[in-house]
């Protein structure tokens, strides 16, 4: 009996029927409190895996169709985590055909490139619009050709065609930028981004500087770039905003 004297009155003092009633009451209270908390939790917490999306950069394809000096044609895939973090992989083909206006020098390359990185969504509302901070690491290993059909020695007067084909180079770079994205229709989105590119490394053959780095753009220490993406967003993230509006 002594062992049971832990509170104001002992459990042994409570009759058995009363004990069962108290237990049931306690269970009911716990159940009610759990039911009351459930909808709040659903509202506050987003699922970790919110969906996936694939996209294509329209600018590159338009530039290629318009016969621009160079174009980066790329597709991308990304995962939506918590509608906040978006790990991204971008894969593309850089294409450049360029002839100097006065020199007769030509440069050409067609080579793949890839980028990996993360988009961070600053918009906390799930209203279909996203404002991104962008970070990427880019890499390309490519071959390029340099030529001049009438390369002449101004002093000694010899003229001969010059061809240097299959020169190998590799480049790595980082990209930082901002992007916006809006919903067009159901799972189709349109996004824009502006990025600052910073070249980390470039290995190239002696005497042959590549004019263009696939995925990076014109070869320089740094540069600016932009994308306009059509995005197919599949998953909870793409449909949630339309449900919320209803």
């Amino acid at each position, binding site marked *: 009996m002594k062992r049971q004297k832990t509170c104001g009155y002992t459990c042994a003092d409570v009759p058995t029927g009363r004990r069962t009633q108290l237990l049931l009451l306690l269970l009911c209270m716990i159940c009610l409190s759990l039911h009351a908390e459930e909808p709040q939790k659903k509202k506050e917490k987003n699922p970790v895996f919110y969906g996936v999306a694939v996209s294509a950069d329209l*600018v590159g394809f338009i530039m290629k169709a318009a016969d*621009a000096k160079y174009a980066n044609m790329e597709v991308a895939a990304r995962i939506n985590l918590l509608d906040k973090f978006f790990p991204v992989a971008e894969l593309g083909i850089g294409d450049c055909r360029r002839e100097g206006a006065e020199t007769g020098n*030509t440069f050409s390359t067609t080579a793949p490139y890839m980028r990996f990185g993360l988009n961070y969504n600053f918009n906390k509302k799930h209203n279909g619009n996203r404002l991104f901070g962008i970070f990427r690491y880019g890499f390309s290993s490519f071959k390029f050709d340099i030529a001049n059909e009438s390369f002449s020695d101004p002093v000694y007067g010899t003229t001969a065609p010059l061809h240097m084909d299959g020169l190998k180079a590799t480049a790595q770079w980082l990209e930082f930028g901002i992007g916006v994205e809006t919903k067009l229709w159901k799972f189709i989105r349109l996004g824009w981004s502006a990025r600052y590119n910073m070249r980390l490394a470039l290995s190239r053959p002696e*005497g042959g500087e590549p004019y263009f780095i696939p995925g990076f753009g014109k070869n320089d220490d740094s540069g600016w770039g932009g994308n306009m993406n059509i995005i197919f967003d599949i998953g909870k993230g793409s449909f949630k905003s339309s449900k919320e509006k209803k």
Partner: protein
Amino acid sequence: MRRVRLLITALTLLLASCESYDCTLYNYVGLYGSFYRGGSAVAISDTLTITSGRKGIVLLNQAVGTSSLNLPMSYWNEEDTLVFSIKGNGYQARDSVWIAKSNLVHYESPDCPMTLFHTIQSVGSTNEFIDSISIIRSSVNYETTENLRIYLR
């Protein structure tokens, strides 16, 4: 949102259309040399003419008081032959100089003139008024420092 779209599209097009050329301004590739006698630099007081061997292209024409040289090299020849002729009061002398080299295309951009850099491998000469030639810097490129020292008799 519409304004933002327009602004971003305009910026994208603007960025795609901007371009600048960063060509090297001083893009002359030349062989630099100086004349020495008895360990010190000298100037040739007589008239000096330098021609390229085979075609006789004049590289330096009747220069007086020459202490240093700045000569173009051939783009593709593996060896340049230069003829040094000096003419003074009542005398003249001639020496041939052979410069063996390798050639390397130097390409910066489609918009910049392409040129060739060279690496001097060996130098030799006849010895009428030239005693010997030593290579100080084998790379012939945009740098303007001395490549050869020509020791006179």
